[in-house]
């Protein structure tokens, strides 16, 4: 299938993060007028858990410090709440810029973001197969891709509760009817064209 939907479980993430394409350029444009005021940092509910604050992240984007950016957890900790976008005095599309960094990490399959990448890819795989997300299949695909025998245990109490309520049922991942395959394929084709 394609790199968007496929889990690529056989292909291990690289150990040293070093994205090849210079997709940073478009993100640099997004934040080019940043005045380093720190409003984004002050507004971010996840700043407490970040190594670089959002303001520092944008500083590094402006300077093209790839190594620093893709060793930092910051963008992967963005929960897409749009507070920074709403409040930035320069009106910069900061949430979109955070997502653009996530997209690079996903495409390059960068090791530090393995958990989130595999979760999102499991999600998209389920969507591509069935047209809709099957929550239980999503979790199964995620557990399989993480190859961690302990991870499912962490979710077991909630899983049991949900199953007891009949909200989810055991589901063996299946190929589905490939409902959205054509759309996924076309998107990938267009994106590849743009990269060139």
């Amino acid at each position, binding site marked *: 299938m394609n790199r*968007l939907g496929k889990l690529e479980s056989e292909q291990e993430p690289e150990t040293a993060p070093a994205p090849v394409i210079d997709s940073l350029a478009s993100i640099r444009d997004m934040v080019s007028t940043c005045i380093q005021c720190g409003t984004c940092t002050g507004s971010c*509910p*996840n700043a*407490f*858990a970040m190594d670089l604050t959002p303001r520092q992240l944008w500083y590094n984007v402006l300077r093209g410090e790839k190594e620093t950016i893709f060793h930092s957890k910051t963008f*992967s*900790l963005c*929960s*897409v*709440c*749009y*507070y920074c*976008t*709403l409040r930035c005095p320069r009106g910069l599309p900061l*949430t979109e810029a955070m*997502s*653009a960094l*996530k*997209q690079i990490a*996903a*495409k390059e399959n960068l090791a530090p973001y393995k*958990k*989130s990448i595999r*979760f*999102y*890819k499991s*999600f*998209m795989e389920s*969507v591509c197969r069935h*047209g*809709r*997300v*099957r*929550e*239980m299949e999503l979790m199964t695909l*995620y557990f399989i891709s993480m190859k961690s025998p302990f991870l499912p245990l*962490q*979710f077991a109490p*909630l899983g049991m*509760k*949900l199953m007891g*309520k*009949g*909200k*989810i049922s055991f589901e063996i991942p299946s190929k589905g009817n490939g*409902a*959205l395959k*054509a*759309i*996924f*394929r*076309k*998107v*990938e084709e*267009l*994106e590849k064209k743009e990269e060139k």
Partner: protein
Amino acid sequence: MKYLYYPGCSLEGTALEYNSSTRAFMQELGAELMEIEDWTCCGASAAEATSHLLSLALPACVLAKAEKMGGVEEILVPCSACYLNLKKVEEKIRKDPELLDKINIILAEEKLHLNGQVRVRHFLDVVANDVGPEKIFARVKKPFINLSIAPYYGCQCLRPYSVFDDPEEPRSMELIIKATGAKIHHWNMGGRCCGAAHMTTKPEVALELVAAILKAARGADAIVTVCPMCQMNLEAYQKKISGMCKEELGMPILYLPQFLGLALGLSEQDLRLDLNLSILKAFLGKWMLNLTSVNRNKNEIKN
């Protein structure tokens, strides 16, 4: 009132009760919901984290299917994540005809076409503005007396597009909650983020965010939500968070249509209260107790 209806994936699984209660509530008010035929997933937050173009193509697919239904031009969406994804495409294609062309090249693969004629509405927007507090007030059969409710909006129905409420200080739920007789628990957490999908991939972070919300809700009798992910995050980890904070932070969490539906006299079965993960017993008990004591007082006055 007639709307196209996009339930989204969670409302067929972990948020079944949001689906049932939304349908029951809207039906009670005489509104008709027409489910979009053969709808597909909007991509949630996962598409945006993997591919920008895909995160626009998936919601566009849904909008095109909605247009195909014909006649009705507004889509009612209960899930805030779905709402924002669909809204984003609605807003972007209005300003960017080139993008619309590109999207249509993709949609052609599924023999779909998007013109941009449908308007995306959040359930809360519809309740606050199309239904309105007066209509709810007039239909209340079992008021919430002496109960205080914390309105929780979350992020994505408020930001980045301020369509029907103030993205910094949301208030759209207040009048409709008050219409049921309940009081508002005033807090500054209504528009705060609950951490969303962090709960799966970075639970340490999300648990902190939810803990702060539950702590701020102390003193309220329940929190009311308008998004399946907010609901799940707020209700499913209460025991864990109570242990973490070494204090009892259990709190009844209800979807807005469940809460309003109760006041309108809909049954607990129709609203699927059996599916909520938080403990509702004390909340329902207090409600019934206050209700009977008021009725008793009324009767005493009559005698």
